[in-house]
Structure formats: C-alpha cells, structure tokens
C-alpha cells in the first residue's frame, strides 16, 4: 500500500512543484529523493509488513512478499533510470516536473498491477500506466516521429483496452459466481466453458499486446523508435516488466489450474515472438530500433514463465525483469549520449570512451545471455522452468537457437565499438559526467553480481 499511495502523492507533489519551481534541475532531485524514500518505505513493508496507511482494500490488492519484491525491483530500476537519465529527461521539453509527475503516476499504476487481485484493479492499473505513456510518447511535440508514435500507440492501446474489456466481460459472464476476483472466476479444473475460453483468449491477446508479444507486437518498434529515447528506455524496461508481472499473475491465479488447456496458445506466442523479434532485429541499422526489436525477442523468453507457471518460472521472471531492465536501461543510457544512433555511430567508441564501451559490452553480453551476467542466469531459469514443465522441449531448443541469433545483432555493436575505427574522428558521445560513468560501473557490477549470485534477488521472493 505504501508504494501506491506514496507514488500517487508524490506525483501530485511533482505536479504542483511544476507550477512553483522555476529551476529546471530541482524536479530531478525532488523526484530522485522521493523515489528513494518510496523505495525504502516499500522495503519496510516487505521486511516487516509495516504499512503506513491502514486501508481495508477489500481483497482487491494483495501485498505478498513476492509482489512487493517485484515492486522493489521495478522502483529500483526506475531510481537507477532517474539517476542515469535525469539530465536527459530535462532535455526533452520544458515541463520537466510534469514528466516526472507522469512517471510517478506510472509507477503508481505499476504498483497496482503488480498487486491487483481483481480484474477491475487490473483494468484501472493498466490504464493508469498507459495513459501517461501515451503522453510521454508524444511529449516531444515538435518531432513528427514522436507525434506519429503517440497516435499509433494511443489508437492501438485503446483498441487493446477494448479487447481486454470484452474479455473481462466474458469472464464475468462465464464465471459461475459472477465475480471480478481473479482467484474465484474459475473453480475446479474441468473443461473450460466457452465464455471463459473466449474471455481467456481476449485477455491473452490484450496482455500480449501490452508486453508486445507477436503477433500483437506491431506497435512496439514504431513507438519505441518514435518516442523520446529516455522514455523509450523507461517503457521498454520497467513498464514492460510490470506488464509481464501482471500478465503472469493474472493467468496463474485465474486460469492456473486449467493450464494444460491453453498452453498451446502460449507456445504459439513464444515461437512467433522469438522468431519475429530476433529475425527482424538482425537487419536493423538504427540501434534504437534494433533494441526495440530485441525487447520483443527478450519478451519471447520472458513468456516462458507463462508457459511454465511454476515457482521456478516466477522467480525466473523477477530475475529476468531485473536483469533485462538493468541491462537495457544501461545500454539506452549510453545510446542517449551518442550523437548518431546508427550502429556505425558506435565505431571506435572504445578509443574515445573506453569505460562506456566496456560497460556497454557488459550490458550487451548480459542481453545475449553470456554466463557471469544476470542475463545468463535469467535465461537459465526460464529454460529450466520450461524443461521442468515437461511439454514442448522443442520450444527450448528453438529458443536457444534464437538466442544464438540474438548474439548476431548484439555483437554487431560490440564489434563496432572495439574493432572498427571511426573514419572521421568526430566526438561520438557528449556530456559524459563522472557520476554517469560511476553509475554505469555500478550497473554493470550489479549485473555481474546477479549473474554470480541470483539468490541475492530470488531469496527475497518468499518468506
């Protein structure tokens, strides 16, 4: 509860701050400080179940240590994101504190969808996440790309909302007791009534849309490409992770005991997502767009948690979200500093900015899933969960082959940075502050630490 309320409140604070604070940098510090406090508060709730607000949530929200840990991960990543990219947020437009306010509202939504227990909360939460995102996507108003992205995102997002609502309606209609609580929509594990099935498919589709799983991923590349890069970074990491978390929680609690009856759909989703994501990423010239596709590819791997729906899978999901978010935030942070977003723009970066190059390669290796990085551990968990599940082992094989393809495009950047010379020696990246470098190093250290000892994170999930 702490997280939800505090973020909402802090969002309001930021909003009002926008009205009174003229300085451009203050909102940043305000936001960072606030988020830190919120993080601590959430930790307190996680540790000792201590909540500042005694609210009877009527079972609509559920604050298990599992959910709270995920909120920690999401907020932690966001904090890192603020620290790394605060200055760049200021560059986007002039109403900085509004952006921060929106970001806080999104965090509030994230807190909701990672603790929801009723379809209503899910719906509201997702809307709270989406609507500010539409705005942030379009926040670079002069830039037509940004406009286009915003429009596309908005229209398709609204459309998917419609789909989701129809699904919810069918679930409500189909459920014997007529309830919106995810846990008692279905009782027993008999064959699925048609209405429930219809609702399931529609929900699956709309959630797949949110986590950009093929064939419902089409908005992703365009929106990620068009949105201001800072916000792309946020969207592609924290928001997507949260969506995944909601996705898995929803399906586990609602349809968990009919798992076998809808696994096929997930298999199709995974196969399509992995294939399209990886294959399309190969040819991209713009790193930003390539990362967009790679995020689709990574989603394919995360979907394994939906495929397996075991404790291992859920641990894996949290680990994966952490690993993926850390690495992507890092690589985006570096990308933002680059002058030229094409892969050739990275040529010879190792000469000019060795530290950037090294950390960047750590992030990329983690995304590829090389051992010693968190990326490997998370993929490893996912595959383990999938194998443990027992069906469709071929899917695992397929997944690892796709991972091999992913090495292909991630390493293109590494090659550019280390083994290619930049022909005209212009400055490749600018305003690299020492603090920024330190943060990058910290991030990579985190990644490697998680790669060595995933228990650091997973051990928080249950107790």
């Amino acid at each position, binding site marked *: 509860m702490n997280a939800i309320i505090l973020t909402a409140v802090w969002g309001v604070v930021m909003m009002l701050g926008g009205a009174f604070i003229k300085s451009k940098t203050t909102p940043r510090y305000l936001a960072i400080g606030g988020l830190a406090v919120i993080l601590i508060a959430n930790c307190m709730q996680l540790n000792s179940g201590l909540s500042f607000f005694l609210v009877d949530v009527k079972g609509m929200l559920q604050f298990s240590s599992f959910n709270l840990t995920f909120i920690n991960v999401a907020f932690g990543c966001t904090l890192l994101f603020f620290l790394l990219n605060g200055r760049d947020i200021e560059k986007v437009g002039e109403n900085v504190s509004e952006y921060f306010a929106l970001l806080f509202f999104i965090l509030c939504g994230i807190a909701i969808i990672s603790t929801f227990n009723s379809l209503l909360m899910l719906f509201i939460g997702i809307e709270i996440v989406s609507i500010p995102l539409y705005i942030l996507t379009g926040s670079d108003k002069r830039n037509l790309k940004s406009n286009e992205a915003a*429009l*596309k995102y908005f*229209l*398709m997002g609204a*459309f*998917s909302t419609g*789909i989701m609502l129809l699904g919810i309606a069918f679930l409500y209609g189909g459920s014997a007791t007529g309830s919106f609580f995810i846990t008692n929509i279905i009782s027993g594990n008999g064959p699925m009534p*048609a209405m429930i*099935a*219809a609702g*399931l*498919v*529609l929900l*699956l*589709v709309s959630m797949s*849309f949110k986590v950009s799983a093929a*064939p*419902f991923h*089409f*908005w992703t*590349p*365009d929106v990620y490409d068009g949105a201001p890069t800072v916000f792309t970074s946020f969207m592609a990491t924290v928001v997507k992770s949260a969506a995944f978390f909601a996705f898995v929680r929803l399906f586990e609690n609602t349809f968990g005991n009919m798992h076998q009856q*809808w696994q*096929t*759909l997930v298999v*199709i989703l995974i196969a399509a997502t992995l294939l*399209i994501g990886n*294959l*399309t*990423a*190969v*040819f*991209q010239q713009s790193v930003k767009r390539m990362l967009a596709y790679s995020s689709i590819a990574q989603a394919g791997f995360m979907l394994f948690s939906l495929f397996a729906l075991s404790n291992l899978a859920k641990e894996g999901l949290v680990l994966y979200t952490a690993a993926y978010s850390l690495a992507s935030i890092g690589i985006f942070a570096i990308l933002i500093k680059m002058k030229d977003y094409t892969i050739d723009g990275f040529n010879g970066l190792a000469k000019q900015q060795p530290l950037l190059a090294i950390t960047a390669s750590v992030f990329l290796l983690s995304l590829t899933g090389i051992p010693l990085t968190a990326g490997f551990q998370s993929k490893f968990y996912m595959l383990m969960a999938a194998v443990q599940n027992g069906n469709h082992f071929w899917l695992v094989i397929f997944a690892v082959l796709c991972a091999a*393809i992913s090495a*292909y495009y991630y390493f293109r950047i590494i090659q550019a940075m280390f083994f290619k010379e930049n022909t005209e020696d212009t400055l490749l990246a600018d305003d690299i502050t020492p603090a920024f470098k330190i943060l990058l190093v910290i991030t990579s250290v985190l990644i490697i630490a998680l790669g060595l000892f995933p228990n650091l994170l997973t051990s928080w999930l249950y107790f």
Partner: protein
Amino acid sequence: MSNVFQLVWLIPLLPLLGFLINGLGRKQLSKTMAGIIGSGTVFLSFLISVAVFYSVTNGNTYVAHYFDFINITALKIGFDFQIDQLSSIFLLIITGVGFLIHVYSTAYMHDEEPKDFAKYFSFLNLFIFSMLLLVMGANYVIMFIGWEGVGLCSYLLIGYWFKNTNYNIAAKKAFIMNRIGDLGFLLAVFWLITKLGTADYQEVFANVSKLSVTDITGISLLLFVGAMGKSAQIPLYTWLPDAMAGPTPVSALIHAATMVTAGIYMIARSNILYTMAPVTQGVVAIVGLSTAILAATIALKQNDIKKVLAYSTVSQLGYMFLALGVGAYTGAVFHVMTHAFFKALLFLGAGSVIHAMSGEQDIRNMGGLKKYMRVTHITFLLACLAIAGMPPFSGFFSKDEILAAAFERSPLLWGVGVAGAIMTAFYMFRLYAMTFLGKFRGAHEQEHHVHESPKAITIPLIILAILSVIGGWIGIPEIFMHGGHRLEAFLAPVFAQSNALTVKHPLSHSTEYMLMGISVGAALVALIYAWSKFSKYQKTDVEETGLGKVLANKWYVDELYDAIIVKPVQSIAGYLSNIFEKKGIDGFVNGVGKAVNYSSRQIRLLQTGQVGTYVLMMVLGILIFFIIQLFL
C-alpha cells in the same frame, strides 16, 4: 659369457651416441674427428656383436627387459631386446658391413663441407641405430620403431643433397611407399594385440595355436605387406631404383645390404606364422618370384650403373622372398648374408668407379677401366661372379639352396627362378663388360683423371671381396660335404617350430646335381654371351624399340602408378578443398547466416508503419487464437 649380454644395450647405444655427437657438434668437429666417431662407434658395436654371436652359438636365447614402454591393464609392451641366432647374424651383417661402409664413406664423401660431412655421418649412425633396434627388439612394437626409423634415415640420406628437388622427391617417394607398407605392418600388430593381447615374439609364438586360420593368414599377409614396402617387392618396389639419388655408400648400406632385408628378417623372425599359413606362403613365393623376374627384365636395359644394381637388388630380394615362400627360411637368411657381401661390394665398386669418373654414372660413357683401376676391377669381377651364382662363389650356394627348395615346392617355380638367374648373369656381365672392358668411351678430361681410389675405399672392397668369395662356405649343401651347412645348424633353434611342422622330402642327389648343372650352365652361357657381346660395345644413338623400349622405361610402372593413384588423389583433394569444402560445407554454414539475413529483410516488411495493417494483423491473430482455443 653372460656378461656379454649385459653389454647388449651398448650395441644400439653407441651409434646413437655417435649420431648425437656428430649431430650436435657438427659445426665444431673436423672431418677426421667426425669420421672416427662415426666409424668408431659402429666398430665398437661390431666387436660386441661378435662377442654376442659367439655366446649364442650354443643355441640359447637372451631377452633383456629395460623398462615398460606401454604398460596398462589391457596391454604390456616392454622396451625389450631379444638376442638369438637370427638377430646375432643380422647384428654381424649390420655392424660389420656398416663399419666397412663408414670407412669407405670417409674417403668417398671427402669433398663435402665439414658440417655436412658430420651430418652425413650422424645420419648413417642414426640409421645403424634404428636398424639395430629393428633386429634386436623383442616385440613387434620395438621392431616397428626401428622399422620406421630406418625408413626415416633412408629418407634423410636419399635427400641428403637437399638442394636438388628431384632427390627430395625421390626421398619422399621412398618414405611414403614405406609408410604404405607400414600400414600393413601396423594392422598386423594391432591384430595380434587384439587377439593375443601381446606383441612379444615369445608369447606370440607360444600362443600362436590360439589363433584361427583366418587370423594367422590375415596377420601374416599384412606383415608381408609391410615387408613389400621395406624390401621393395611388387607393387611397392619403385622407390628403390629412385633411391639411388642418395650417395653411393648409402645405396650400398641401406638399399642393398641392410634395410631392404628388414622384410626378410621380419618374416624369418615370425616364420611360424607363415608356416601355419600356406596361403600366405603361396602369395609370398609368387610375389617374390615375379618381382625377381620383373626387376631382372628391367635391369637388362638400364644404362645407369647404379640403376642396374638397384634392379638387381630388387630381383635378389625377390629370390629371398621366394625362399621364404617355399619355407626355406635358412636359405633366405643365407642369401641375405651373401647378398649383403657381394651387393655391398658391387655398390662400393660402382661408387669407386663413379668417384673415379667424377660423378659419371652412365655405363655407355665408360669402358676399359680395368687398366686404370685394378683393385676395383678385380673385386667387381668377383662380385659379379658371386651374384651370377658361379661356384664356388658365395652367391652360388645361397641361390642354389633357394632354387632347390623352390623345386621341392614345384618345378615351375624353379624354372622361372632359373630364368631369373640367367638374366642376372646376363645383365651383371653386361654391366661389367661395358664398364671395365672395351676401350674408354668417356670424355678426354675424364680419361686424364681416372685413377684408382684411395685406400679407405679399396680396403673395404678387398675385405668384402674376400667375404663374397668365401662367404658361402658356411652353407655347403649336404651333397658336397656332410654337415657342411653350418648356418642351418646354427639357425635351427630359431626355425625349430616351423621345421617341426614342415614335412621334408629331400631331393635325390641326382636331381640335385642335375638342377645345379642346369642353372649354373645356363648362367654360364648367358655370362659368356654378355661378355663377348658387350666387351666391344660401341656407343650408338639408335632409339630402343618394341620390348626394349618398354624395358628401358621399366614397363612404364611409374607412369601407371602416377595415372591410377597420384593423379586421382590429387584431383579428389582439389575437388574437396575447392568445391566441397568451400561451396558445400562452409557454403552451408554461411548459407544459414545469409538465410537469417534474408528472412530478416523480408519479415521486417511486415512492419508497414500503418495502424490499419497492424490492427488487421492483431484481429487475424485473435481469430486464429479463437479458432485454436474454441474449435480445436
């Protein structure tokens, strides 16, 4: 006497030391020093060998175990030496003849640079070492070590003048053909190991009864393949003539006296296997005989003095295999010995001639040398008589024994053998006559500096000449002298097992006399004819025609091999490396990459950038999911 056996390990070690000293110190050592070290070490081991020889006369066998070469539960191969009558004889031949040739070389190679001189001697010593290893080893693995070692040395020595590409090619050919033979040898050894779990002579021969007939036949045949390679039998004989590229002493030592007889040693060593495999015996006999004939025919038309000798070597080796094939192991060894004497002598003589003619090898440009080089001439003549099988020279006894044994098996073998003997007599005396008789046909400046060779060359010649005269008297057949065949008595323990298995039905004296008479008489006729024909030979530049041409071109065997083996292999290799590897396998691997790229370029077109199409896709997706979920 046993203390002698304690010294056995010195026999191979001394030449090895010589090799090391000469090899490492070749920059520092003077020629004389190198020569002394080279010959001295061999001489010492010769002395020890003599002692050893006398201590095995009483028929005992000595096996020395030094350390485990390979020792695992499945297989134990010790680094062991076995000294018995057979090996001691070979020890004598190798070290004795080897020593003479070392001495000879000191003079023959005198024009070499000091360091090359030392190198030469180190190689010679290395060869002696490997050869000794070959004959002393107490199991097939040690034998194989020596076996490949001598192959290596012959490679190094043939290619001694490494600047000349043809020599290198000849050396390579020798090595590779030997390798082909070794393949057979190895397979045989593996077979033994697989069936008996050991490669020790004594254990193998003791348990030979455990082997099935197929096993024995297979093993013995494969061993024989090895012998083909080393001892230059059909089809692997073509390297030997080319090997004449090496310095003449090398040809004398390796390609006449010792290495090429390794095959005979090996078969004699494993005689029991052959006695128990009649099929193999047949094969051996036939291969041997046909080699003898083929080589002889080729030798008829050769004009290079060393080539003639080389082919005669091949054909003599053929005789030895004939002997082995018909079970006359003693005869084979006997012939090895005598052949070692007179063939070494012939080569050394030829070397002396070449030396005198300052490198000229074509006998058409020689003639009338007898008045210039007395010693060489006499010794050479003696050797020719010996190889032609004229009594009482050594060759007569050994060859006669072989022919007799062949007759026992079948008169046909004998007949062909005699034909070979006749040709031998003919081409040897053609050679002799064209070289020493008639008048000098060489250039003038050559004539001026034709001279008798120095002592270091002539003395070995004389010693060998004596040996090739009297060498045969240790094997006088029964009919001349009772118990005259001392060699047979001496070797009896080695062949005891086989003799026990073979039923002897000795020829009546009359037949034996008749056979001898025929062969000797025929040979004599050929001899005289050749003498008279070629003593007044005139250089003519008429092209050889018909059969002559074929013979002069060695039945075109090299061309044949080139066409059916070398060329195909080369073209296959070319195809594989240029087409199959690049286009095929690597093409596939890169093709995967290309495919990924291509499909990437295609799939990304789905991303049309139009909301309409995106939503359409989504709706289609929904449709598919519905159908799957609700109706399947």
